[in-house]
């Protein structure tokens, strides 16, 4: 599976996610198996996900819960493929069980048309590199990803987040990668490329590259798997020793290490623009340090705490002595 991100990416097959709700496990297994047989026969590449947030949702029209989810999916502009409980199956987005491959291809291609039209209408030609990488890393069974940028190629091991890259992934190399196209290929266990790709290159932490992609190549959008109202915390501090020091990131990390906050709450507590907070969340999610949490918090008035801290004055003067930017 190749996922290319770059200026011409909108002309190439997109990696789309499809999910199902409301029908029994046999139908779900059948859908997955049929999907697996479609490689290369559809306009876009389709990947099944257990998440309910997907590009296309397949649902049983006779299931009340499914209908509730579908209403939200349609409201967010995403197509749904209906499995009707009764009546004719005449619409382009209607499927019948058992699923025929031809009919499924037609449905998915029609959904691609809808999604492409939607992207064109919003001026968003393709998923961001961050989104594509996130999807690729979460592909079921993915062992590693081949990343290609310019004439460099490396192997990112998904579980350990270690990468074999021909040169040191310092800030300059990350900047070079971010400046151009990034091609992503998912490898599964046993794939011959696992041995041949980046042979001889020493493993290093992928965190600097993943973080840089989250911050700089999110396209201004939150990852699809990060719903706006959800609260998050960090399971550990990102390793800013290899990522690089940025006051805004340190501020957000300190907050999310001590409390679970939503994006809006994080922006309010930190005093940072929501766009800055959003790419921080994307980067943290890509690095695998962001976890969802349901803790409730009391919102302060914006900036209410500033000046009331007994340490506030001295902390400000220490920052000043070292020319550190105060993020808040």
């Amino acid at each position, binding site marked *: 599976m190749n996922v290319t991100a770059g200026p011409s990416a909108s002309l190439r097959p997109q990696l789309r996610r499809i999910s199902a709700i409301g029908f029994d496990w046999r139908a779900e297994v059948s859908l997955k198996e049929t999907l697996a047989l479609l490689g290369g026969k559809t306009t876009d590449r389709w990947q099944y996900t257990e998440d309910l947030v997907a590009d296309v949702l397949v649902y049983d029209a006779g299931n009340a819960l499914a209908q509730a989810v579908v209403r939200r999916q349609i409201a967010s502009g995403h197509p749904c493929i209906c499995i009707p409980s009764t009546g004719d199956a005449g619409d382009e987005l209607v499927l019948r069980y058992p699923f025929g491959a031809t009919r499924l291809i037609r449905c998915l291609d029609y959904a691609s048309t809808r999604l492409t039209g939607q992207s064109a209408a919003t001026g968003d030609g393709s998923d961001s590199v961050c989104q594509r990488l996130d999807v690729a890393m979460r592909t079921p069974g993915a062992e590693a990803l081949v990343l290609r940028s310019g004439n460099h190629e490396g192997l990112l091991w998904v579980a350990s987040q270690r990468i074999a890259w021909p040169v040191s992934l310092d800030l300059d190399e990350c900047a070079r990668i971010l400046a151009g196209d990034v091609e992503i290929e998912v490898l599964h266990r046993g794939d011959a490329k696992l041995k041949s790709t980046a042979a001889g290159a020493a493993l290093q932490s992928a965190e600097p590259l993943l973080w840089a992609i989250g911050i700089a190549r999110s396209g201004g959008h939150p990852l699809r798997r990060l719903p706006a109202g959800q609260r998050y915390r960090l399971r550990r501090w990102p390793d*800013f020793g290899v990522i690089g020091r940025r006051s805004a990131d340190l501020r957000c990390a300190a907050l999310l290490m001590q409390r679970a906050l939503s994006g809006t709450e994080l922006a309010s507590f930190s005093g940072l623009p929501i766009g800055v907070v959003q790419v921080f969340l994307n980067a943290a999610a890509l690095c695998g340090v962001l976890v969802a949490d349901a803790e409730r918090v009391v919102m*302060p008035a914006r900036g209410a705490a500033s000046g009331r801290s007994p340490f506030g004055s001295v902390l400000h003067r*220490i920052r000043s002595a070292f020319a550190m930017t105060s993020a808040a």
Partner: protein
Amino acid sequence: MSREYKLLFAGPMGAGKTTAIGAISDHAPIATEALNSDLAQHSKTHTTVGFDYGEVALDGGDRLRLYGMPGQSRFDFVWKVASEGALGVVLLADNTRPDPLADLAVYVEAFRPLADADAMVIGIGRSQQGTTSIDDYAHWLSERGHAAPVFSVDVRRRDDVLLLLEALLSQIETRELFATSSQP
């Protein structure tokens, strides 16, 4: 009247405390070094037996005093006295040591009051060379109820020492923010 604030640097012998202080101090650190009589712990010829000392001038005539704690655990009574009234502590560890987590355990326990107050930060030297990952350190701390920042650092670089300091400040600010925002 000018005031003084205290920042501590601690960790095993050879972790880079004197170097870290030198990277950010206004003047070269004043070190109390002697011949290393504990070569089993570290092969360097000299080690700190008293305090290392550096300082940073702050606006308004105040001073931030930087104290490097002697590394050997027989000086643990000094660590506890020094931590009273300290702004925070920077713990340094060397990832190439045989058991860096065990090294760290002594200091995390000795400076527990500061750790509990979110006033501890940990810098790992030579992180790419050892077998203990940053995840391992974070997990180990979490099991002990701590969430201190752990970063790969090279304390010869001023920017890496400033990263540790800024993370410490961010933690303290956040603690204060949540404390004051939850007051009626």
